[in-house]
């Protein structure tokens, strides 16, 4: 079995807190939001030991104490760029060609000279 994820005192962790039950939420919410609790996640240094899901108090970077359920130890960022977008891959090639053709035609209209690259 894989090692259980545990936070030790001083570890950089994230806790999950239920801020508002559905019943305590603001009025005028669309139903899909109103039926869910308002949840919060905050990071800080663990003030004790806990396993994932267990209650833990943290000290945030500003020095606040927040108590919640341990949701991650050493939480990272997993945002990426991802794959090239097929609808966009040709845009640069096509627009550069269009620009060059336009400049050739403008130059032809003006003096018959050839337009240079990106300069006018």
């Amino acid at each position: 079995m894989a090692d259980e994820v545990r936070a030790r005192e001083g570890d950089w962790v994230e806790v999950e807190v239920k801020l508002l039950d559905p019943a305590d939420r603001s009025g005028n919410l669309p139903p899909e939001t109103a039926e869910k609790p308002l949840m919060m996640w905050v990071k800080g240094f663990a003030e004790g030991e806990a396993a994932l899901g267990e209650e833990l108090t943290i000290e945030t970077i500003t020095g606040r104490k927040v108590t919640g359920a341990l949701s991650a130890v050493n939480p990272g960022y997993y945002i990426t760029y991802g794959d090239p977008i097929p609808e966009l891959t040709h845009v640069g090639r096509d627009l550069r060609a269009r620009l060059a053709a336009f400049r050739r035609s403008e130059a032809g209209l003006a003096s018959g000279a050839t337009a240079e690259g990106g300069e006018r």
Partner: protein
Amino acid sequence: MATKFDAIMARRGEIMRKALGMDYSEFELSPISFDYERMMGAHGYSLDEIVAIQTRAGVGSTPLLELKNLTDLVRSVSEPGKGARIFVKDEAANLAGAFKDRRASVSIFVAREKGYEGVIAATSGNYGAAVASQAARNGLKCIIVQETFDSRHIGQPEIVEKGRICEAYGAEVVQLTVGPELFFHMVELLDVTGYFAASLYSSFGVSGIETLGLEIAREMEHLTGAFPTHVVITHAGGGNTTGTARGLERAGATDTQIVSASVDLSGLHMASDVDFNRKSFTTGHTGFGVPFATWPDRADVPRNAARPLRYIDRYLTVTQGEVFYITEAMAKLEGLERGPAGNTAMTAAVSLARDLPRDATVVVQETEYTGAGKHHWSQLNFAKEMGVEVRAGNPEENAPGKVIVVPEGVEQVRAKDFDVARMRRSYIRNALKNAPEGYAPTSDDVEFLAADTKSDPETVQATLAELREA
């Protein structure tokens, strides 16, 4: 029974007064009107002093670039004699990567002057990075409260990136699921910490944007010998439009047309847990642009310094697919790889410039940084994962939350005019609705409403008469 939410909201006025270090009641004139200019000037800093504050903060004096390739691309689809010159103010060159640094630099300066230990801002946008960066330079603690996740704990990648950058600058980032109660938690945090409320909508922040309009007027005069004929501004909460237009005015550019632009997200509910991750733009869209313009005082301050209808001449909307297309084009043709939300105005400018004479000058007044999460490829890949269809075609077939249509050619990039007269009427209706029932507007109120909607007393009177009949 009073909930925890109600209890905090009942004390909201008292908590905000302490956290803003300013009593807004002294500007109130009637249940409808207040002295806007006196509120804007109450901080006591001249425009020159604000420039000096920003220079010390590493903010402002960003490059103004002429986009000759984009201009010629537009001319390639324009009628003969048409195709205005396009310029951009590269605001991504600010310290934390966006024009929001101008707002934050003044707010954080004020917070330090007033002796606060820290600052709090509720923002899922670039403003968080700006506040965190300026707080770091000034040795202040900083808490940023963000709406980041849907109820499945799936984060909008752009907001996750903004959380990362705030943490990189040493801020505590409080991340919430979808809902307007974000404001409730911010007020709770202000109460507990005693920190300064670095509101996006305070006069400090909005005054900080005036330098952007000032720089554009001066730099265009230097570059072309005249003020720009048009300035196009990405519009969300209204601060960008308000501050830029005020700065242009203060520089003497009173004939410059103020064109605001937003991404069309019509049909998506901003408080919906489901719609939240079905949009690719977290700012610069109509979901903020329309409600904040038609009722600015819905903001987290008693009176919003951002009052865009005072300045807007035209309001254009563009689609998500069009902005992604122009974002890609900007990188490939102009060597400017910038964030999509900041390119909203650029997309509107491409359409606008096409219909203007060649000697007209169109300035797009901002760009923003980009990167993993914010990048247009990240957003499109995420949209696909969330079940939104992405395809090439005619942007007319765009359907927010369902289909993103990427144009097949630049000729398909066409902004749409949003009815500004209707927004003005809607603002007046909201002003009446928020006054005590049966309150009859005085002639001073009519003057105020006319100024607040860039209109005239006769038009306001006619609207009031219409509303009475309805």
